[in-house]
């Protein structure tokens, strides 16, 4: 699964330093320093966007570590992908989003109050 160059450029504008790799025929994106919404500790974390269906979700945002979000999200640990263990929360989203939209919808899970 490949994505149009403009979608990748859009993601790169949101996340400087983003990297990509092919894993099992899917282009995945490593975000070395993803800024988290206000109230999360730490405020920056390494993440990996898997922009295709997996584990019953339309896409997944994996985190290198579990962080404090204060919202009681449903965390899963020891998720294995691409030779590493990751953390993620249960968070559903609509299909057919652009890469940047996908990332923003995943991050909405950690926003307090009204969703921007």
């Amino acid at each position, binding site marked *: 699964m490949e994505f149009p160059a403009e979608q990748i450029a859009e993601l790169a504008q949101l996340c400087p330093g983003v990297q990509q*790799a092919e894993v099992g025929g899917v282009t995945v994106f490593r975000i070395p320093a993803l800024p988290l919404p206000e109230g999360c500790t730490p405020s920056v974390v390494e993440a990996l966007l898997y922009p295709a269906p997996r584990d*019953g979700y339309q896409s997944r945002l994996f985190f290198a570590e579990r962080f404090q979000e204060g919202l009681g999200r449903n965390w899963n640990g020891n998720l294995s992908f691409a030779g590493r263990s990751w953390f993620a929360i249960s968070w559903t989203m609509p299909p057919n989003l652009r890469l940047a939209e996908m990332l923003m919808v995943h991050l909405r899970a950690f926003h307090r109050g009204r969703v921007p």
Partner: protein
Amino acid sequence: VILDTRRPDPPVGPVRVRIPQDLLQEMRQDLVRKHPYAAERIGYMSVGWTRGEDGEWILVAAEYLPLADDRYIDDPSVGARIDGVAIREGMQHVHDTGKGLFHVHMHEGVRRIPNFSDVDREEQPRVVETFRRSGVHAPHGMIVLGEEQANAWVWLPESNEPVTPEQIVVVGDPFVWIAPAFAGTILPSEDERYSRQSFLGANAQGWLETARFGVVGLGGGGSHVVQQLAHLGALRLRTFEFDHLDLTNLNRTVIATHEEARQKEPKSEAAHRRVDAILPENHLRTYGRWQEHRAALRSCDVVIGCVDTFGGRRDLEEECRRYGMVYLDIGMDIHLFAGYPPRMAGQLILSRPGEACMHCLGFLTAERIGQEAARYGDLGGRPQVVWPNGVLASAAVGYAVGLVTGWDGVRGRAAYLQYDGNYGTLMPHGHWSTLRGVPCTHFPSTDVGDVFFRSVIS
């Protein structure tokens, strides 16, 4: 006095090279083709890489890059010489993929372990040096293939001096073990313990002692597996289990005693005691969750998965494919239908590089994994019993021994056996018959080794 100025063979180093059988065949087929003017052919073997147990290097062959006829220089003084374009192509590949690169050629007609010639020792390290400059973090090297054996020199990133890998394994059915350092059976030769299994072959005991078998899960299935492997004389067992025993395990977990279950001892400790009792010379290492001990898992040659969930199987198979290991999966379930006797069903699946995977075989589906994930892995205390675990574990051990020793003469054994516990049958699943020989589409052969991320330019 004649001074031997030839570059000596390097010492054996902590490197294990895995080459899928189909890739080796592809390399041989290309390298034996006649060239218009060169006496032999050259190619490149790209390798993914990672670090294994105790920091050893695991190299997994990813693809073969043949060189075009016009990349050879017409020089009758040597078997083959390639031009600068060919070397630049190699460097570019290293740069683009992050993989290591090996200069490959073949000594036709040589049945023992082939030696690098004086010219090879002089010239090929210079080519390898260009790969090293292009990919400083990756291991690179040179390999010469014989008819049945191979030899290699590997330059690791941390040193300017090469090493000879302690093991080269052709991952196929069966395995071909190429181990320059291997010196036959490790256990005392006067030992009679294995005289009744000498039919496995002259070198079989040595391979069983050398191979690393990983057993993931020490419940109903894994407890049988680890015990049988100990009886076989498999010295280098690796187990991965974090759980403790309890009394409900006693109906099927054959490594456990009543007292151990009552005391809620760790399953891995119980396994260690049983293996020590059967095979005192063992080099068993026990680990917790494999996800927390990935290096140890990656050093295994064969992994036998005895896990409960589809997601767990998916993850284990992904890991095994990425690092060039053979994965054997066993599992069973009891299905209850009101008004009918319970139905007992299970499976043995052999997943090896390049061949049909559990997705190809229809055993793993996105729907199954998704439904399971929606239950957050809470499977409860599912019905289990000892004998089907024993049947499937025995079948898996049989497959593992066949793969490692080749004793049975089987080439391309069934990748999917279905077990019917009500009728006591274990037979090839229809999906395997349909997919036999069809290459896997879920795990590209180049997806091996640690993932290499490249920058996205905005």
